[in-house]
């Protein structure tokens, strides 16, 4: 398969733009035609009407939790850590969803009319905690959007040679397009369609490997390749160090040490990415009742797990078993078209192309763009909703009318999109990699997880303990990673993730035990901001 050293893409650059525009057009048209009556008031724009059933919520959670990372980073773990990679990726990322089932059921029962989780925190704890959580969820949603845009753009650059920066702009424009029409309902509806499309595409890719098409080796056919890597010790990522190579030389080991480290990073990082993310809370808020939302989070969890697992098994392990080297150019076995393996995170699209040629390419591109659009639109919408509901209505202008909140919500969609674009460009310019973004996310915001859980489920939780536990945990964890571990992406980031969560718990739990602040959860039943154009 090895061909030449020149960077080559299988498709012309315009095809990347065409695929994106086509999807944007389809989703915007469907939302305009089917959901034009939705989101007319500020409350329904943010809360989606609170009458969406199990089917759409289930699929929306799956689509929202399938990021570009779910397809590309999971495959990267298979390529880097072997057979354990997919299981650890799936396990670490699945754990937050069942937790959300209990959290959202509890908060919907306690406070049926809340529109965001910082609003719940405002009435459960106090104003300072609300603002803190609002800032955290804005950062989380923004971070996730940046990862989506970067991951999607990398994939399209890989296949089409399109300009990275132009692709980012196009994606941001699409994110804003249809959610600006009908708010949360539009996001959940489009998620549902995309989830169903993604299952078909993933089915095509995994079936091809299962039946042994192209570079696919049939059921368990990658075994020999992984075994050979353990014997021959190939250097598949020339720019990386020996530690990275060694994990690739241990691909059949379930206790692959680097893979276990990734499990810790993945679990801690994803707890923060879900529990402190308004996008997932909004799926609970938009559900028709607490029983269905509970069911939806659980079923989404066990239907989501096999998505990264199957992609890792089919694509990531394939790259490792075939001995694909980063920087080399390979030929498709079907049409002789060449494609360059530009970076390790792109192992999945490379294997898709090597397995099924243009069909594999199309299936993967549609899946990643669908994942990117569905989650990206949800994240930007959530960011705008928190700004409008918690910063503007909850803090700056408590007397704001529904019309004003709706206007702020829509304006913020565009402002946030531009701001995130600038950050994406900056990170790309300084070389902050896609895999780096993924592994580092827990360091900055998972300190809120333990305090948040305590606030929701423990009546004596101390308000200051929650506040300072969250802040100090983040400062110490990120300080360790930046100043002591020097941004190390192997074990430095693992310890930083552990420190972040441990410090927040060590502060919040003893503080609560020493100085309990009893709270009556029944007082939340009628709580929430007044959206009938009167005072809060």
């Amino acid at each position, binding site marked *: 398969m090895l061909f030449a050293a020149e960077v080559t893409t299988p498709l012309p650059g315009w095809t990347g733009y065409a695929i994106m525009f086509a999807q944007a057009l389809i989703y915007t048209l469907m939302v305009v035609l089917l959901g034009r009556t939705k989101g007319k008031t500020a409350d329904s724009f943010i809360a989606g009407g609170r009458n969406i059933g199990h089917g*759409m919520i289930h699929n929306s959670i799956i689509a929202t939790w399938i990021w570009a990372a779910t397809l590309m980073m999971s495959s990267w773990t298979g390529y880097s850590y072997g057979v354990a990679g997919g299981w650890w990726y799936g396990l670490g990322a699945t754990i937050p969803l069942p937790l959300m089932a209990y959290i959202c059921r*509890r908060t919907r029962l306690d406070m049926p009319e809340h529109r965001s989780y910082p609003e719940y925190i405002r009435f459960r704890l106090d104003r300072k905690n609300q603002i803190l959580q609002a800032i955290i969820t804005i950062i989380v949603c923004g971070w996730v959007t940046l990862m989506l845009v970067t991951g999607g753009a990398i994939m399209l650059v890989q296949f089409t040679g399109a300009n990275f920066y132009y692709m980012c702009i196009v994606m941001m424009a699409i994110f804003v397009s249809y959610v600006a029409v009908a708010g949360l309902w539009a996001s959940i509806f489009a998620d549902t369609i995309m989830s*169903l499309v993604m299952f078909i595409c993933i089915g095509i890719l995994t079936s091809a490997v299962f039946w042994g098409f192209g570079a696919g080796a049939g059921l368990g056919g990658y075994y020999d390749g992984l075994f050979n890597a353990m014997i021959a010790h190939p250097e598949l990522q020339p720019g990386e160090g020996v530690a990275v190579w060694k994990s690739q030389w241990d691909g059949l080991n379930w206790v692959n040490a680097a893979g276990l480290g990734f499990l810790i990073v993945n679990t801690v990082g994803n707890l923060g990415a879900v529990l402190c993310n308004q996008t997932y809370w909004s799926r609970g808020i938009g559900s028709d009742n607490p029983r269905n939302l509970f069911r939806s989070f659980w079923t989404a969890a*066990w239907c989501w797990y096999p998505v990264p697992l199957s992609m890792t098994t089919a694509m990531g392990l394939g790259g490792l078993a075939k001995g694909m080297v980063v920087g080399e150019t390979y030929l498709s076995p079907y049409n002789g078209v060449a494609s360059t393996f530009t970076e390790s995170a792109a192992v999945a699209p490379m294997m898709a192309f090597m397995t099924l040629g243009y069909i594999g390419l199309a299936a993967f591109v549609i899946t990643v763009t669908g994942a990117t659009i569905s989650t990206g639109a949800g994240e930007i919408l959530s960011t705008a909703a928190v700004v409008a509901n918690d910063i503007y209505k909850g803090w700056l202008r408590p007397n704001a009318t529904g019309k004003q909140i709706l206007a702020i919500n829509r304006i913020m969609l565009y402002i946030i999109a531009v701001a995130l674009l600038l950050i994406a460009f900056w990170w790309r310019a300084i070389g902050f990699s896609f895999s780096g973004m993924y592994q580092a996310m827990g360091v900055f915001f998972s300190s809120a997880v333990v305090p948040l859980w305590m606030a929701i489920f423990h*009546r004596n939780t101390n308000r200051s303990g929650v506040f300072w536990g969250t802040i100090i945990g983040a400062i110490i964890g990120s300080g360790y990673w930046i100043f002591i571990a020097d941004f190390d992406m192997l074990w430095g980031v693992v310890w930083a993730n552990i420190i972040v969560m441990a410090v927040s718990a060590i502060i919040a739990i003893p503080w609560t035990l020493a100085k309990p602040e009893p709270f009556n959860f029944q007082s939340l039943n009628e709580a929430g901001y007044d959206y009938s154009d009167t005072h809060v």
Partner: protein
Amino acid sequence: MAEEQVHHNIEARLEMDHDALLEHLRDYNPETGGWMKYMHVEKEDWWWDFGAYVHIGFLIFWCLWCMFVDGYVTRAQFQLDHLITYAWIASSAIYSYAVVIKDFAGGKGTGG
């Protein structure tokens, strides 16, 4: 406690409505914000929870077995791993389609 009193208590509990008994066992006090009610298996939701716990149990068993009993996978285990993976993604897809079709066909739960 007298034997007669014990008999009386047992009979009283047997006569309790099943739902009331469940409520009694939950011992939920909303004023204290007791969380057991929300963590407890709801009567009508039991099979969702049961399925979930079986699911988690399987994952934990599988991972522990692979890690501690047999660190390096054999060819047969590798094939079994792939078979489980592909069967799982297929069943997930079928379920996800089924619940949407049920929602859309019934005209309910689509948000209006």
